[in-house]
């Protein structure tokens, strides 16, 4: 179990670890199409991290990284961004690690990035991801029908959002 959960900006020394998580089939299959089914390596993570429209954070249990939380599509004009997240290490305890990481990300989104609203999309059937969002105060906002390509057809993409107060 994990006594202290924190988030920290993903550093170059963590890019390889993050790439390993993103490449894992059980994680990769839920990602946006740009990530799915392609080689994910530390250079891709480095480039994504250098993009000013992204902000990637490791979720740490004590001193050990357990997963990622991230802002994407950062739009400072509108004060909006998307969020995404993954649990990379089951060894450090599944319960609440990413939910707490996402809660901390919301705080950073308000205090550091001065954002006003966050959104996320989840593939229908990914119940764990929906639970993470709902625990962090995200609300169901709609459905994009058949917006996710599966091997044998399409799935709906469920949209969630949350307003945040700037500190």
């Amino acid at each position, binding site marked *: 179990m994990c006594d202290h959960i924190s988030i920290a900006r993903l550093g170059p020394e963590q890019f*390889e670890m993050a790439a390993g998580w993103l490449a894992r089939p059980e994680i990769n299959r839920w990602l946006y199409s*740009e990530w799915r089914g392609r080689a994910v390596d*530390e*250079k*891709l*993570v*480095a*480039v994504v991290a250098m*993009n000013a429209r*992204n902000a990637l954070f490791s979720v740490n249990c004590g001193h050990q990284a357990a997963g990622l939380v991230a802002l994407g599509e950062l739009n400072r004009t509108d004060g909006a961004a998307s969020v995404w997240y993954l649990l990379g290490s089951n060894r450090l305890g599944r319960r609440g690690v990413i939910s707490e990481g996402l809660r901390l990300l919301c705080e950073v989104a308000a205090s550091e990035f001065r954002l006003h609203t966050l959104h996320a999309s989840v593939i229908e059937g990914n119940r764990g991801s929906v639970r993470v969002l709902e625990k962090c105060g995200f609300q169901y906002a709609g459905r994009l029908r058949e917006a996710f390509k599966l091997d044998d057809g399409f799935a709906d993409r469920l949209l969630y959002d949350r307003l945040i107060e700037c500190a």
Partner: protein
Amino acid sequence: MTDIAAIVREFLLDHFRIEPGELSDSTPLFSTGLLDSFAMVELVAFAESSFKKKVRARDLTLENFDSIERIVGYFSAAP
């Protein structure tokens, strides 16, 4: 213009359909969104192959890759 600059410029124009008038040696490639993350990865792979220098992940910074002239500086420097 150096060889490196000419090669990178030609790749950008051909591969990403950038208009020649949009692209000078100092045009920001990434920080302004002219290239997205995945295009940048393709550019880095092309440059590694063309200039025979492996790019370390920690070197992938805007200081090294955000314009043709910065790419020239990076690949011209000693390994």
